[in-house]
């Protein structure tokens, strides 16, 4: 990589840091606009409470301080990479997020790979068989998966594969109480992963398939493709080396978008399949008004988006060397 590129990346990272700070402050005020506070929710769940109890909780959480002071504490802690303590679990926010991170990355990563591989493959096949029956089948299937609500698909998959066929587990990440080790553990988690990863991946599979197909068809009409064909190159090599490589740019853009959602984008899937990930943590924190936890998840998700936008830009110039990175 050239010096110029490295400078560009460094500059983007600095800008990213500023963006993150602004987002954190914005989020801080945003979630406080919701009615109620964490003390009320905790006390509310307890079924009985009095002013003393609420006051105790608010003091413990620091919510009795003026808002600007709370913001100051939060931001200065954040600068030192301290995200505070969750109100509910009384655990450091960072630890709790890291505890859930592997599960989410496994799920979203698997869905990401699945949709990329399957989507591009389906798109290439559909483009190659343009206006033939296979093309129609792929296009229609992609349209259906694109349009179906995720939670419905998840429920139907669980009903069919778990209740009716009894092939796959319907909830959780592993068989509780078995204490598998080694390959047995891998297999166990793998079995649990199939339904949620497939459900989560189908939407983007459909998007990639349609995107790849359209882009391939467009590219195949360009002059350099005719030239390659005229040279007498094998059709398969024309497809993979000339058309696909040029058709991939829009797919990379979308993949960058999906990668940004790797942390927080699986709320529904995690909820339906009881997958112990971050999306659920965030969703629950929202209803429990667990400000610190919610801000923590927001912060890490936005950091991911900033990071992946940068990665996408770098990948652009690998896929298409004509693109140069510069300030």
């Amino acid at each position, binding site marked *: 990589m050239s010096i110029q590129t490295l400078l560009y990346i460094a500059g983007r990272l600095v800008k990213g840091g500023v963006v993150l700070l602004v987002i954190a402050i914005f989020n801080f005020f945003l979630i406080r606009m*919701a*009615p*109620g*506070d964490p003390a*009320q*929710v*905790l*006390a*509310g*769940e*307890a*079924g*009985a*409470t*009095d*002013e*003393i*109890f*609420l006051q105790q909780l608010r003091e*413990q959480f620091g919510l009795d301080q003026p808002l600007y002071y709370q913001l100051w504490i939060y931001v200065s802690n954040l600068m030192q990479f301290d995200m505070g303590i969750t109100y*509910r*679990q*009384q655990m450091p926010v960072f630890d*709790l997020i890291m*505890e*859930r991170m592997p*599960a989410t990355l496994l799920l979203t990563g698997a869905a990401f790979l699945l949709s990329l591989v399957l989507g591009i493959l389906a798109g290439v096949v559909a483009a190659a068989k343009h206006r033939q029956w296979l093309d129609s089948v792929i296009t229609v299937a992609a349209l259906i998966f694109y349009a179906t609500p995720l939670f419905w698909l998840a*429920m139907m998959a*669980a*009903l069919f594969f*778990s*209740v009716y066929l*009894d092939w796959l*587990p*319907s*909830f*959780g*990440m592993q068989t*509780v*109480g078995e204490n598998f080790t080694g390959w047995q553990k891998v297999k166990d988690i793998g079995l649990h992963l199939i339904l949620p990863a497939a459900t989560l991946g189908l939407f983007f599979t459909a998007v990639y398939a349609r995107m790849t197909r359209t882009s391939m068809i467009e590219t195949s009409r360009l002059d350099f493709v005719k030239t390659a064909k005229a040279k007498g190159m094998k059709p398969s090599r024309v497809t993979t080396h000339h058309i696909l490589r040029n058709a991939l740019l829009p797919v990379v853009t979308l993949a960058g978008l999906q990668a940004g959602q790797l942390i927080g984008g699986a709320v529904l899937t995690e*909820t*339906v*399949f*009881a997958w*112990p*990930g971050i999306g*659920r*943590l965030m969703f*629950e924190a929202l*209803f*429990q*008004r667990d400000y610190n936890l919610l801000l923590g998840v927001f912060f890490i998700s936005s950091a991911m988006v900033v990071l992946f936008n940068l990665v996408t830009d770098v990948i652009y110039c690998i896929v298409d060397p004509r693109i140069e990175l510069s300030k």
Partner: protein
Amino acid sequence: MKKIIMGAVIACLPFTASVYAQPQNGGTINVVVQPEPPSLMIGMYSNGTTQQVGGNIFEGLMRYDKKLVPHPLLATSWENSEDGKTWTFHLKEGVVWHDGQPFTSADVVFSIDVLLRETNARLRTSLAFVDSITAPDDFTVVFKLNQPFGPFIRLFEVGTTPMLPKHIYEGTDFKMNPANHHPIGTGPFVFKEWQKGSFIHLAKNENYHVKGLPHIEELYWHVIPDAASRSVAFETGKIDVLPGGSVENFDVPRLSELDNACVTTDGWEFFSPHAWLWLNNQEGPTADKRFRQAVMYAMDREFAKSVLWNDYGKIAKGPVGSKTTFFDDTLPEYEYNPKKAKALLKEMGYDGTPVRLMAMPYGETWQRWTEVVKQNLEEVGIKTKLVATDVAGWNQKISDRDYDISFTYLYQYGDPALGVSRTYLSSNMAKGSPWNNAEGYVNKQVDQWLNEAAVVFPDSKRAELYSKAQHQLVEDVPVAWLMELEFPTIYNCKVQNLVDSAIGINDAFGTAWIKQ
């Protein structure tokens, strides 16, 4: 001078064991826990699911059967003095905490007088009647009351007054004590592991103080956030027990009919959940008594019961649950009578001002119930405007009395002084809590009856006062009582003797067993 001696003769083994076939030892039970509790530290968090799981780790001095009669657990016997103001408890000897330390009267005094007095809002109210708690010897505890407090004997179930280890909590910051993450009790199960977001694992306490118990080896509580997924998990046999209220009501009939599915509505007697409509007594049309009576007549509660609650539960006659103490069954009834409702509205000159109807964000059933009530009210000419919010918002709006009509259900805790009076006493009207007199009802006469009923002695005098209060409340309709709710617990029939106390699932697994 000791007058009433209770419990001493009853054998230490908790009740009902012999009714069933010879219990078998061994096995694992998988239970749903919804929502995931914030903590298992039952002394500081009284959330429903904290109690469900924690009640198997910790214990109270007594256990209550389905008729709310106390039985010995950590206390073997107890007596009350003639004036009703001194209670003496004799503790069981040879009980050890999960870490091996002995359980003594010092733990009891510390738990109640120091720890719970600071952390447990519900108990704190009752402790106002207790002047001193002392331990003359290692296995005796004496409570001196400033007045006879009727419900005193019903304070000792594990959710209200759990026994907590003094040697671990004394002199520490209770809320930050590391033992909150690794609870140590005297109960039939010891804490093993909690994978946040996945499951909580408890295992048999090999040194449990009741011989031969528990029968179950392992207990797993699964966190499954989606209601439909919980049903599926039960259907696939991965879950053995769905505690009451953990699946949507419309799934209950289907799940109950599965092979191997057993259903019970027992185990809620102590809580006796009572559902009603909050009616704002301070502002708007609902401040008029005639309007509130009209609401009572307008509602088709039988319809709601059969359609929304699968016919489980009972129409509520008044403020006190029919399964708890001091219920007066001579109360007049508000039948479904739209004509009467219309007449009352006409009499008060209701001008058609729309009232805000706020749903309770506790799941589908409550959403639908709001729609039913809306329809009922509109049939008699009351215009409504639906208000939607989430749990935090709902808590705040109720606490601030920022509503016209809304829903709730509250536990009765076995005695009107513990679970009923709090809703109607005008001294309890301060804003800030959704469990207070959030409707803003004021009646000095009722205040006097309720306050007196908590402290007169003996029970016959209490009953008289509570009857008077109930009749007046039913006349005034401070809130519109809907139903005494029943939450069916659905479980795999291989689980035997699952529910055998008034708090049901909350302390069920010490005596349950699995038929192999």
